[in-house]
């Protein structure tokens, strides 16, 4: 049975001033799978990822056209607050970025924004999501110490837990292991494989081996255009487009 489509991208164009960041992207992203976006540096991978929860349009001078559906909801529809979209579509940034507060407050930040005040409920969310981020055992005795004191690998898992705490449906990950050491990277990758049971994960990576390890579905971008998309077996095993073949063989990078 083919997986359901969770995100539908239709004719997405992103312009920085007058130059194109993305040109006419149309793609489907399957639910509860890991979709990996690959392509050479500057090809628009991150722009595409950040379009999916509308972080691109926080900057001035950026124009976005086209449609993106999360389930049935079009994310640029002015009837919905952008905060609603971002709650459903979370982001794990390239460099871990703890908020200037304690470990506990970092995780509780999102739920508090969305109206959870009850202490017992917050306690439960914090423990549950820190377990999902595989960080609970390491921090359970120092939940109220500054998050910035954690190691960088721990910080990234904290950011993962923080993102999960608002109960998103989709997790966007922007080269989530590029700032980490190999051991921490492996830790994070294992979390993704476990989390795709319940979440749709979209990940940007420039590490091809990582893409091969994790991907169920692949989008290949080149100079702002979507060149090829398909299941991991198809794209990695039998790439159709010459550019994809060149990229996978390392001729272009």
């Amino acid at each position: 049975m083919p997986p359901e489509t969770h995100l539908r991208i239709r004719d997405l164009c992103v312009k920085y001033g007058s130059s194109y960041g993305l040109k006419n992207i149309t793609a489907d992203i399957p639910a509860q799978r890991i979709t990996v976006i690959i392509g050479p540096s500057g090809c628009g991978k991150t722009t595409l990822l950040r379009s999916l929860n509308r972080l691109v349009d926080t900057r001035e001078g950026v124009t976005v056209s086209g449609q993106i559906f999360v389930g049935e909801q079009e994310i640029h529809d002015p009837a919905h607050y952008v905060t609603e979209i971002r709650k459903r579509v979370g982001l794990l940034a390239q460099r871990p970025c703890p908020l200037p507060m304690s470990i506990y407050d970092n995780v509780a930040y999102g739920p508090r924004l969305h109206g959870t005040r009850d202490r017992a409920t917050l306690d439960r969310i914090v423990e549950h999501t820190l377990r999902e981020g595989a960080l609970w055992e390491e921090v359970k005795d120092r939940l109220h110490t500054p998050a910035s004191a954690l190691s960088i690998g721990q910080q990234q898992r904290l950011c993962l837990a923080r993102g999960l705490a608002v109960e998103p449906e989709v997790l966007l990950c922007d080269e989530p292991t590029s700032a980490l050491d190999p051991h921490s990277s492996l830790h994070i990758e294992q979390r993704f494989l476990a989390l795709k049971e319940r979440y749709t994960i979209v990940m940007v990576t420039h590490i091809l081996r990582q893409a091969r390890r994790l991907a169920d579905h692949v989008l290949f971008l080149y100079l702002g255009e979507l060149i090829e998309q398909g299941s991991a077996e198809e794209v990695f095993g039998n790439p159709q487009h010459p550019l994809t073949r060149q990229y996978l063989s390392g001729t272009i990078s």
Partner: protein
Amino acid sequence: MDLRRAEEGLFKGLMLASMVLVLGSLALILGVILVKGLPAMSLDMITQTPKGGYYLGKEGGILNAILGSLWLTLGATVLSLAIALPVVLYLNTWRDARSRLATLTRLSFDILWGIPSIVYGAFGFTLMLLFGLRASLLAGILAIALLMLPIMARSLDEVVRMVPRDLLEASYALGATRWETAVRVVVRQALPGLVTAVLLAMGRGIGDAAAVLFTAGFTDAVPTSLLQPAATLPLAIFFQLGTPFPAVQARAYASALILTVVILGISLACRLLTRRLVKNVVR
């Protein structure tokens, strides 16, 4: 090879010289205030208002000016912070920090910063005449707030601009609005710098004599309402120093000592109060 080493030595020397110059000036000022002011220091100075003939060397103190300065500075700080902080947060959170609006606003503040405080005093005085107000604590607060505004806004701006963009996006990505992000993340992250910026502006405000000369007036009484005139420490120092009596001039130095201690006390208190909140800042 030897040239490079000589160059290194030269610049090290220059840096040492400027450090000695700065610390030396501070030590000299403190020394003069202490040596000349301490003998005239007494409990009366800080607990009494001037009695008849105080400026001729009779008894009394400068409680009027101490309280006047404290009220004035408190009012002006709150007022200018209430204007500067929203402006700065707007420029850095709602708008792009490098947008044309932001550049223009910064330029305006830089120009305002360069205006001498006597001009703010005269401007305040003109407004008072226009509204038929007399010299009062309120008018002084407005004039000092105007003087402090550009200093506070520009220092706050420099601090808030240092907050990493990633931090804002981390907050947005969790579904926070810009307001929530500004208040819960930006202010918290920038807090140590914000305190410094406020103290910097406050130091200028409390030490300024020219802006309050026409606007706050001067009186021997402690003000009990915003519409009464208020004495201030810088003016008290000025008037005492202007008398021909050595005993009163010594009290001017004692007043300067009091002003210095007040500023030091406020700075330390602010640091202590915010220390607990600052430990979470991401470095």
